[in-house]
């Protein structure tokens, strides 16, 4: 009997740039994060051929989840064609054999910065959000070890205090992006710099969301069918950005989150921030048989 008879023939067993032990570390932390929704899990961050602060946190999660049969979409501020989004997407596909897409419906993994797509995500899709600052308590507690104790004690009085003072001073809540939210009734997390418009999309969602910060080396999760409640007073309703009545000036979508584009003559026009949704709408209007999925917002209203 020869050695080769006892072993399998050589085959590539690793993909996605990271080595097996780095992936195991990430997988463990992902499982932990899913088990404790909204709780930040520290992890050993690897060096990647990309500077920290450019999405290395999200990238490590995606590289761990990706497989040759995956279909990957990467967006930056809602757009698939930004330099950063394009280079991350290319890196992902080259290192894994996964297919690239711009279409939300087609993707199995969506890595994003600043936005959640407007088309509803399904239970076979994973959303990976790049997070610049994972600690919602940082503005009220600069000492991170004290902040961790506050999480352990579910001591979120100071976050509420900030909202109280905004109401006292301005008569409204000023917090825009990264709106602090209570996950599963236990941990307050920052949902990365997504707009308030996108926060309800995480509540009782069908898909899994993983949020990861490469510089801070922390990841956390909003598992499917898990509650996520923005911190709001019972008598001051949560308000999303006032985009329900806007229409994209290039394509037909209405009632989606818009980018404002200032014009030379003063004034401004609006453009669907989810750029692939806009592209699909234009192509469909031109007669192409394009499928547009059900959106979270219908007629500017969020539909649970």
């Amino acid at each position: 009997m020869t050695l080769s008879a006892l072993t399998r023939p050589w085959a590539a067993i690793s993909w996605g740039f990271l080595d097996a032990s780095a992936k195991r570390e990430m997988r463990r932390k992902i499982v932990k994060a899913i088990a404790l929704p909204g709780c930040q899990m520290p992890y050993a961050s690897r060096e990647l051929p990309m500077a920290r602060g450019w999405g290395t946190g999200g990238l490590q999660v995606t590289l761990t989840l990706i497989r040759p049969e995956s279909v990957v979409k990467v967006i930056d501020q809602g757009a698939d064609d930004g330099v950063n989004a394009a280079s991350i997407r290319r890196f992902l596909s080259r290192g894994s054999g996964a297919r690239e897409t711009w279409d939300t419906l087609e993707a199995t993994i969506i890595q994003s910065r600043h936005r959640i797509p407007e088309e509803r995500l399904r239970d076979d899709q994973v959303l990976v959000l790049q997070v610049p600052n994972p600690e919602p308590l940082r503005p009220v507690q600069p000492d991170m070890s004290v902040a961790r104790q506050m999480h352990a004690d579910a001591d979120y009085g100071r976050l509420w205090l900030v909202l109280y003072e905004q109401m006292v001073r301005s008569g409204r809540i000023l917090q825009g992006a990264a709106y602090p939210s209570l996950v599963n009734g236990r941990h307050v997390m920052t949902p990365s710099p997504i707009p308030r418009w996108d926060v309800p999309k995480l509540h009782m969602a069908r898909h899994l969301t993983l949020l990861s910060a490469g510089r801070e080396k922390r990841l956390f999760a909003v598992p499917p069918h898990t509650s996520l409640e923005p911190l709001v007073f019972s008598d001051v309703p949560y308000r999303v950005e006032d985009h329900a009545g806007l229409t994209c000036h290039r394509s037909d979508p209405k009632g989606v989150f818009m980018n404002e584009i200032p014009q030379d003559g003063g004034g401004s026009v609006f453009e669907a921030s989810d750029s692939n949704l806009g592209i699909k709408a234009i192509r469909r209007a031109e007669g192409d048989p394009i499928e547009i999925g059900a959106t979270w917002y219908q007629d500017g209203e969020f539909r649970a």
Partner: protein
Amino acid sequence: MAGAPLLTMTGISRRYGRVVALDGVEATVWPGEVLGIVGESGSGKSTLLRMMNLEDTPDSGDYRLALPDTPGNLFDLDRFARRQLCARRIGIVYQNPHLGLLMGHSSSGNVAERLLVAGERSFAALRARARTALEASEFPLTRMDDPPRQLSGGMQQRVQLAKSIALEPALLLLDEPTTGLDVSVQALVLDTLKRLQRDRAITMVIVSHDLGVIRTMADRVMVMRRGQVVEQGLVDQVFQDPQHPYTQELVHAKL
């Protein structure tokens, strides 16, 4: 005093390194009464109050409060239960307002935070309840949204007081609440405390090295020295006819 005590402490001892801060202290407080604690600096008064506020744990000793759902030795409670009990049932005013207040946040916000921790989520109710507590502490409402950092010492103490009574605690602890204030301001703050005590019959423990403060505020007094209680009794009795040589010294030095 009739009936069951609200607070019972027995055999409380605490060392910090070689310093014996508390040495077998026993304390009892009945509902509605004001217990004064006097003693020279370093005699363990603040340490005892911190124990009553469950901020610190003794090396040995037993602490009970006769409140619903708080059975057994409170030092055996886990961290979470302690915090809940502290926030909801015990109020404290420190000599140093930095210990009790977020100096850069608004005064009303400092009070509201207490209410938020206890689960109040209506903005209108937070506003109204903070205002009520500040009013009861005779704090000038025109300044309710100014941060304590910008307020006088007397006003800072009133914010602490408002915060500590906002949830109508069963027990109010006061650690030298007027020490460091001008004499005239001190008298006004003591007036407020007396009125609150009269109107709400709050059970209080007040620590002071100033016998005058204890005489105005307290029903009973406990005299501490080197971590021990050397004498206790009704204020009039102890101050008129002190038994322990240390108390005699204290009273005569003062008079």
